[in-house]
């Protein structure tokens, strides 16, 4: 992916850019809002990562500006402001995701890749998903693995739906908490891990090949690959 990173803290930006490059992405970096806007206008990016507080032009204005021009490149806001209202204003300005500083790099990477995926997805609504021999049908709300029906609780279904929609990508605990439970705070105990292990017991336990993997220090990934 070609990523535009707009961040005024050079050191933080260098750290993020290095990590993203190591993960195989191309990163351009702008130090202030105006040059960020200029670079975004020249086009060709797959995702924007924009700090909210920037010199010359703040992140919200930058993105609203691009959105007014019809630019639909997915964007993620980075911000030290983490309360719900700030999050809402970020999303209103056209942001697709919001990450509060300080963040773990794995969290940033997972979210950027999720954004890229969202863009690459075909525009028709997909209602059936498949990873290996695991199938999920959103309309009939059924899950099968190797043609065998698996009964899931409603929340387990939503959890699996989120994972399967982001199949092949790392999904962090915070992403799950935000998207499956709609909470924006981090519990101090391993509540998500326990939900994952319950889900795993249903979809992986009786089968040869585990699909739901734990990625150390990052989160989880549902994938058919080894």
């Amino acid at each position, binding site marked *: 992916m070609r990523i535009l990173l707009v961040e005024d803290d050079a050191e933080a930006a260098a750290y993020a850019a290095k990590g993203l490059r190591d993960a195989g992405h191309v990163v351009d970096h702008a130090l202030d809002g105006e040059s960020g806007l200029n670079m975004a206008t020249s086009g060709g990016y797959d995702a924007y990562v924009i700090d909210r507080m920037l010199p010359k032009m703040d992140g919200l204005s930058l993105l609203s500006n691009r959105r007014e021009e019809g630019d639909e490149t997915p964007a993620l806001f980075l911000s030290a402001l*983490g309360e*719900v*209202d700030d999050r809402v204003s970020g999303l209103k300005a056209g942001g697709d995701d919001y990450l509060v500083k300080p963040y773990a790099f794995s969290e940033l990477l997972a979210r950027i890749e999720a954004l890229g995926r969202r863009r690459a997805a075909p525009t028709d609504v997909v209602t059936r998903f498949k990873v290996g021999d695991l199938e999920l049908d959103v309309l009939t709300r059924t899950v099968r693995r190797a043609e065998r029906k698996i009964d899931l609780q409603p929340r387990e279904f939503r959890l699996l739906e989120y994972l399967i929609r982001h199949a092949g990508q790392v999904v962090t605990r915070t992403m799950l908490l935000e998207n499956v439970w709609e909470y*924006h705070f981090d*519990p*101090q*105990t391993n*509540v998500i891990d326990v*939900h994952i292990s319950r889900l795993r017991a249903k979809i992986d336990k009786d089968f040869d090949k585990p699909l739901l993997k734990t990625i150390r220090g990052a989160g989880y990934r549902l994938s058919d690959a080894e």
Partner: protein
Amino acid sequence: MLRILRTTSFRFTLIYVVLFASAVALLGVYLYNATFGEAAKQTDAVIDSEISVLADLFSTSGSGMLTRVIRQRTAWSDDAIYMLIGAPSGAVLAGNLTALPPEALTAEGGFFNFKFEKPLVDAAGREVGIQQREARGKMMRFRASADAEQSYLVVVARDVASREFLRERSRSVVTRAALVTVAFGVVIGLIFSRTLLRRVEVVSKTARAIRGGDLSQRIPTTGSGDELDDLGSNLNAMLDQIERLMAGMREVSDNIAHDLRSPLTRIRNRLNNALEGDAEAKDAALRATIDDSEKVLATFNALLSIARIQSGEGAGVMKPIDIVAIAEEMAELYEPAAQDAGFDFKFIAAPTPQIKGSRELVSQAVANFLDNALKYADGGTRIELSVGRSKSGGAVLSVADDGPGIAPENRERVFERFVRLEQSRSTPGSGLGLSLVSAIARAHGAKLELSDGLPHAEGGGCGLRISMTFAPGD
């Protein structure tokens, strides 16, 4: 004094006075015309018709008849004035005027006003003096035929002295009333603007004091509940909020200074030492530093959240929330983790009134209760999350466990920032969890309470119950 003239209220008063005075003047003019104007016109009409009657009489019956009729009329009527003079001889043939008014000759054929003297007669008919009267009338010249040498001058008039007197009186009364109104208005206006000005001055003085740095100053209110009082209490409420925010900010910066200085110092010292050491020591120091900075960041975030909730900023919009649904969701989120940790988890929901609040914050508080129960209820076997109606009719959320609990004398201290009781020193955590919950409770006007939890299976002790009681909504 000059300041008063510049005040809005005085200007309003002035405009009001001018408008009111104009209204009075208009009313006066109207009344004047409707009464005296009408009366004058009527008098003129009567005089004209009288003259035409006399003219008819003269042309049909001659001067002798005219003389007789005029004599008769003067005898009957008191305020009717007639005079018949034969010309050119100048002999007064009939009438009650002693002399021909000089105005009569110049205004021949038209109306004229004149003064005349009238004897003052007492009840017995004796003359006791002379009275100055005023009258209005017309003088006509009658001739038997166009070329007749002999002509008669006829004066027909009406005494208008009493009417004139009344007219003068009314005019001066109306004028005086208008003047008094204006004067009164100006005085009242001055008093009003002075009073108002004094009260505004108080607001202004308070503002100056506050600008000077004394944030505790408040605008005194009179308790009358008028607009100025309203303004005062609104400004006071605003000042309260500002003071609270400033205090919050100060507290946050104090806390940041206090709570972050020591770990940062530790990091610096460790890195300093590592510079001297070998590669292995450096690695160890770096890893420890990463761990420490994670903790610093967590502390920092927690402090920031607390400050934002306290300032009312993080609460977002308080709207009606279904507290049972929130508890149910949290139960669903935590139950597996509790079971995995070896607890028997129970969720008890009773009908609960709706409250106003933030779903996010209330959920966060419940999550904190449950996190604490999971972390600190060592050796316990049960965790209970319950929601229901409080005694006072509000909603109450509580989490109880049968862990070691907290001794009653220590319970109060738990809510203070960074207080981590001796027994729990070894468990990870910033110690800010309950401070956060307490900020959330304050933002919702809710009450936090620690009490006895679930009884231990043996030994007669009990665990801890933490409950958050929301005041009944409206």
